[in-house]
């Protein structure tokens, strides 16, 4: 049931920022998440600001220092089949390929995938929950099998993105354009925990647009990927998943980035596990220690302790498969 809204499609970033700064404006990239939210009445919108005419938000190009710049309007399908991304940043390619369905990937964009609203069924449903205007989080004592085991507190959503964990693992930096010009935000600092603000998922301020993501040069010899577990074979969000980028040199882990999906309100980097790995050989003992470090501090709700097991399983599976 789409409510009434005005529609604006600016052709310059300056105009787009101006339109988005107005009260009740919402950004439309691929539209796949926005239209669902509007249909479900998740938030009120006076105007839909379509970004699709902003040419500078499209496309993938090399950066001078050997990295890659991906425009926020690049579709997930374009990312999933981009040969350079598949070769140098497999975690991102696999993340994009594992999201949603083929048609949604043809339409949904990287920017939209990063900025999509949570899929919590209370948030999306006819419940006045804390993330909307309500008093409390229904998941706390409700149907919480899909909810967070890390970082929950006042709201127990999990971040729905399959590309964001990869981008955090790859140490990507987002460019954000807003009323005050452009700023750079590392993806690792882009997302906001409920403890900070349970009404938003990221640092974008009113009127700000995520315009591009810049990936630094891929470290030599890095092994990476994204492993996602879900109920259905496709068209499903992660019960838990792991985006990783690991460099093994001379039999030892030189650098490890492990970021979990589906278990926390933000892409959940398990820095303790990374620490455990760094400088060590990837033997069974190290893997076991990393597995334990990855789940340390988990606070499951009544129905989602299984996610701890899934995290253990996926960390073990991934690390064991990396050539020593």
């Amino acid at each position, binding site marked *: 049931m789409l409510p009434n809204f005005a529609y604006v499609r600016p052709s310059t970033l300056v105009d787009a920022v101006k339109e988005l700064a107005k009260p009740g404006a919402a950004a439309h990239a691929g539209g796949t998440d926005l239209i669902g939210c509007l249909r479900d009445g998740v938030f009120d919108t006076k105007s839909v600001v379509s970004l699709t005419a902003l040419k500078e938000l499209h496309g993938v190009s090399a950066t001078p220092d050997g990295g890659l710049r991906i425009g926020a309007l690049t579709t997930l399908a374009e990312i999933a089949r981009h040969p350079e991304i598949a070769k140098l940043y497999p975690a991102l390619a696999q993340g994009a390929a594992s999201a949603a369905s083929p048609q949604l990937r043809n339409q949904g964009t990287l920017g939209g995938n990063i900025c999509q609203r949570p*899929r919590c069924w209370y948030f999306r449903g006819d*419940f006045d929950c804390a993330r909307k205007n309500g008093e409390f989080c229904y998941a706390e004592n*409700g149907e919480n099998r899909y909810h967070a085991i890390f970082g929950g507190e006042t709201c127990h959503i999990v971040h729905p993105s399959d590309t964001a964990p990869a981008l955090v693992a790859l140490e990507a930096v987002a460019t954000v354009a807003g009323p005050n010009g452009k700023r750079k935000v590392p993806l690792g600092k882009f997302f906001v925990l409920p403890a900070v603000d349970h009404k938003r998922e990221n640092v974008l301020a009113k009127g700000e647009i995520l315009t591009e993501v810049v990936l630094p040069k891929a470290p030599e010899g890095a092994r990476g990927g994204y492993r996602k577990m879900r109920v259905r074979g496709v068209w*499903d969000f992660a019960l838990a998943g792991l985006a990783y980028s690991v460099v093994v040199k001379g039999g030892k882990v030189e650098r490890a980035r492990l970021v979990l999906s589906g278990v926390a309100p933000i892409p959940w980097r398990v820095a303790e596990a990374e620490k455990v790995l760094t400088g060590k050989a990837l033997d069974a003992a190290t893997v076991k220690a990393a597995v334990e470090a990855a789940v340390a501090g988990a606070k499951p709700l009544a129905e989602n302790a299984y996610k701890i097991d899934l995290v253990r399983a996926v960390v073990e599976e991934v690390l064991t498969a990396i050539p020593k």
Partner: protein
Amino acid sequence: MVELYWLQGAVPETTKPSPEMPPWKETAVVGKRVPRVDGYDRVSGSAVYPRDILLPDMLHAAILRCPHAHAKVKKIDVSAAEKMPGVRAILTAQSPGADIPWFPRRDKPSTSIFDQHLRCEGDEVAAVAADTLLQAQDALKAIKVQYEELPFVLSVEEALKEGAPVLHEGGNRVAPPAVYERGDLKKGLSEADAVVERTYTTACEIHVPMEVHGSVAKWDGNRLTVWDSTQGVFAVHETVAEALKIPMANVRVIGHYMGGGFGSKLECGKYTIIAALLAKVTARPVKLFLTREETFTMTGNRPPNKMSVRLGAKKDGTLTAIEFLSTGTGGAYPASATTSFMATDLYLCPNVKSSDENVFTNAGRARPFRAPGFPQCAWALEQAMDELAARLGMDPVELRLKNIPKTSQRRGNQPYTSTGLADCLREGAKAFGWNEARARKKPDGPVKKGFGVAASLWGYAGGPPSTVIVKLFSDGSVNLNMGAADIGTGTKTFMSMIVSEELGVPLEKIQIEHADTGTTQYTAPSGGSKTVPSDGPAARAAAWEVKKKLLALAAEEMKLPVEELMLSGAEIVSTKDSTKKLAVKAVKGLERQQVLVGVGTRGPNPEGKIVTPFAVHFAEVEVDERTGEVRVTRLVAAQDSGRPMNRLTYDCQVFGGLVMGIGLARTEERVLDRQTGKMVNANWHDYKIPTALDVPVDQKVVAVDPGDTECNATGAKGIGEPATIATAAAIANAVADAVGVRVVDSPITPIRMSQLFRERQKKG
């Protein structure tokens, strides 16, 4: 008779049964692989589904529904909504003519269309008709309703507690528990060398056909035409006439195409009545289709069940005792939630006890869902059989073969007209490679393979009434007139094939008129696998009668005795001298009359015998012991549904049944919020039905045809439900084979498996 669908007990035949027709032997058309006769319409976009209907001056309607699990309407204010742009009419309980009892066809209609006592989320509160659908939906938001929220119950246990909120006068029990007994259960258990006992549950499943439920209603004076997405135009016809208190002759219901039902569209919905009421007050056609979200709460479900099973057997596998105790809830209004039938009839066993208990809860009402009760029963019974086999050290196929009945023990020990259960087990096992698979050595890796089997029967195989008319035109082409809907099962195609078989007319020369109460004849709704065995024989009888009339005319003109003549393609030929022939087009009597009409009716089922389809399913799965991920990698379905009518659509239906079974086994589950009683997953993201990546490419159908010449004139017993009953249980058994963990609660998600692995680890 099993308690099924809306058809209960004996029904009168429409007219007297047609003359004996000998069973078919070799067939020329029937049983072949024939693409659908309406394939063009379905792939070109030219098929007009009810949802597609656009009439001049048509309004669009939407329903305001209760947002609470249990409430009463205290006050309703439509004044703001009435002033919204495009709004033409608003209906509430207070509107003149809207106080209609529901269901009109039930003995005790205790509620009404806009009942002020709202017993579940989604109950109807008001309706709006507007120029556009969006305007109607906007207006819904402007209707102000004051509710008195009431305490609610969601489970059988809560509903039966003392002091529990009561949904209907007389308490929360729909009826006293239905108990069935034969022999002496205690004795049977004491005689057993092995006894297994366990409690199983199945989650509530929602039908969610691709086309949502809805109708278009148009009045011409006091005559009403309804286009409905339905499995049975005649069921809708009766209910609409009764609800609106107008003669059936003033109501015409058309349902040419429909986008799936699976049992949820066997009956008339409130939406149809509401559309008719809105059309009446606005004097304009009204289109009312539900939203996808509404179909999750308000168009039925497969009720959740809890089943405790106890089996006893001798060392050699002979069953001595079966106990099957089932509870369930059909939701807020009367609906069946029974499961026990198959447990009392599938295997030979002298000592049996079953009971079915059904209570009201504040949740969406159940409707028959593809083989109602049977897949749940199989989930419990067939897993228990598997456990029993393990306990006895017997092969699961062997254990089942040991206990094959020749009679229906539940139905007065009457013999089956045919039983292919043993053949399904044997031939299915062969096609699956069962013995080789079970004898394999398990690999070391974390991903384990497993193999499972489950057997089933279905408790219904059609019957009267059904009337079909076949008309032969003077040029030898044919009109086939039947009341049945083609719900995706290929009804139009197989009915044409039957006519073609008898009359030798090619399919492209058969015109079809169907599913229209104004122009076709009564038949029960297409459900319960009844269309082939009920309407097929009527079609054959109609064609048979046309043939008889044609041969009689030809005999006169050829001056030959009619017994000597046969119809062969477009010619009438003497069986004694093949040079004596007459083209159908050249029959003068036909030319004079221009049309020969044959009326075929479905005769009664054979007296003293039971017609029953059987099926055995085999599954191969892979289970990741680390993550609990389960993949179904291979399925074989051995089906005894008698003679296949169209092998192409027969296979397609079986594949569909298997996929639905995967849904029960692996992904589907209604989730009600314990805090509010509201459904949290009323959409296709959170309520997960199988996708292309959840089903194996490797699916095989073995058609076991026992050559049943007694069941009816087609030799077919129906395939729709038997195609889905055993699947989920076979998958669960395969999972148990793979990792040694028995999953008693559906669905088998990584969530469930992780929890079970954790429990196993705890136990050591």
